[in-house]
């Protein structure tokens, strides 16, 4: 492979890897939105918090694998607590109230992170077994990023299996399309909400830990990923997993190649994309309702 092609390919793989992680964050967001009608403003903050968990656990125990196990679980538990003790209390007050409370949670997490870990960049090194670069047909590529792609594929495959092949997944999908009816059929929807909120936070947690060695850990992580995840959910259509996947990949590639060709305007590009799509289809590509 000549160097120019190698560069394009590696940019493309970069974009896909970012798209996968983005989808991991956005899938939780879109499921929560589809079921509960809550756009969880704190979702990206959970993602960032999990990256900090990864840093803390690797520093104190020296094991990245332990972080990969415990970080998402801790984030998931936090999500369950937020749903049980905050969101459930104001569910009857409407969507604006829920947006505001989750914004409050976002601020609290952001403030707590700055209070505990400060604002400087922290670095998490990948586990030694993955910390080398492979030479694939003349293209040098860090193995850890390949691992990120493999891991996210496995997690997403498991998620798809649960959602589309099990009874639990069927109930979740039914609740996404009509929660009141599912409740009337005798299924405990509040507990289902709590479970989905926890699972969504768990996915954000997985994304946070896996991304920690690639990007560095700092409070601005939430802004970047959060904005992109919102765009994915909104453009893909609220509650649509397929739409979210498509848009996540598009944005991954768009930002990867955008930096290459239009470095000045790359951030504008994604927002312009979102604004245009929403102006034409306010419900997103695959959305059926607002």
């Amino acid at each position, binding site marked *: 492979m000549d160097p120019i092609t190698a560069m394009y390919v590696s940019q493309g793989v970069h974009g896909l890897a970012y798209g996968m992680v983005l989808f991991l964050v956005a899938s939780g967001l879109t499921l929560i939105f589809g079921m509960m009608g809550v756009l969880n403003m704190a979702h990206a903050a959970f993602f960032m918090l999990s990256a900090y968990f990864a840093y803390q656990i690797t520093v104190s125990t020296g094991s990245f694998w332990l972080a990969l196990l415990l970080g998402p679980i801790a984030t998931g538990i936090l999500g369950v607590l937020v749903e049980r003790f905050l969101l459930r209390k104001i569910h009857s007050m409407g969507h604006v109230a829920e947006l505001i409370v989750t914004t409050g949670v976002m601020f609290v997490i952001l403030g707590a992170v*700055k209070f505990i870990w400060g604002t400087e960049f922290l670095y998490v090194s990948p586990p030694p077994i993955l910390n080398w670069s492979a030479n694939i047909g003349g293209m040098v590529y860090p193995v850890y990023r390949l691992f990120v792609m493999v891991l996210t594929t496995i997690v997403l495959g498991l998620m798809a299996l649960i959602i589309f092949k099990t009874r639990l997944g069927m109930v979740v999908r039914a609740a996404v399309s009509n929660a009141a009816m599912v409740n009337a059929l005798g299924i405990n929807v509040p507990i289902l909400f709590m479970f989905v909120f926890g699972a969504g936070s768990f996915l954000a947690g997985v994304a946070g830990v896996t991304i920690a060695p690639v990007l560095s850990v700092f409070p601005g992580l939430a802004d970047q990923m959060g904005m992109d995840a919102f765009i994915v959910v909104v453009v893909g259509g609220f509650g649509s997993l397929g739409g979210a996947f498509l848009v996540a990949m598009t944005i991954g590639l768009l930002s990867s190649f955008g930096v290459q060709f239009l470095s000045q305007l790359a951030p504008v590009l994604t927002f312009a994309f979102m604004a245009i799509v*929403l102006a034409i289809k306010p419900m997103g590509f695959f959305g059926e309702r607002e």
Partner: protein
Amino acid sequence: MINRKVKWVLWGVMLILLTFYPKLVGPYFTNVFVHFAIFALYAVSFNLLLGYTGLFSFGHAMYFGAGGFATALALIHINGCSLLVALFMGFFASVILAMVLCPIVSRVSGTAFAMLHLAFSMLIYTLALKLRKITNGEDGVSGFPIPALNIPGVVSFDMRDSTNFYYFVVVVIGISLWLLWSFTKTPFGQLMVSIRDNAKRVAYMGFKVPQTKAMIYAISAGFAGIAGAVLALFQDVIAPDFALGPGTSFQVILITMVGGMGSFFGPIWGSAIFTLLQEFTSRYIKEVELLMGVILIVVMLYFPKGFAGVLALIGSKVFGQLPRKTTAEDG
């Protein structure tokens, strides 16, 4: 209802207090008051959308910032631009921006409305950061001349003097708030509440809901623009991070929620609370975000009507009357 005479006396006392305030507290707290007044107008214009019409926006800062940048750029590029013209430019720029966006945003409501505003405000914010030739990037536009307020042949006030500027702000923002207050009392203003409560029904009654929303939207944007313009004149600098950024959009949500989105005067209380809070806590506490988040959650869980709601409750206890319904119809 408080006696009408008592009300007039209270207004009189407030007017006297406002007149002699700079003499009483000195220049520093005069400037604190100006800051409070700017954010009060900004929050009241935001509340026109949130509290009255039920439209939640994550990007109101774009109108605040547009007004500020328009005023600053007018003062730099137009030779001998007078103060009131510059102020009007701020208002005008925000209204134009709102009219450009309203064909898109007036069709939606709820979460889509909120997210669309996040997208547009971030678009404008990033553009302001990137178009260095016009906005000077992160540093923002600064050092523009602040013209004196001239009444030709009669008198001229130097606006660089903090006391003079204070009176200017009190008049401009006072008039703006009075106009908005009167607007909420007109039949057209009452339509806002009807749209919030049942948009479908309003449409059945023969009103054009999207057009009405668009009008309210443009008015709200214009007054946010005035607030931004006054800020630019006040600080002699307008930077994207302070005037256009997502933080400014969130701040106004916070102010409105804490003050109470149910009433016209709620956001004014909110601005007062936040100005005082910033004044006294920023010296001791670094974690402003943590504090704001906790305030937001506690207010939403336990005082959804905000400070104005608490005041109304106390008022009804003290004056021994039935608790008034604190919806947007009353003050």
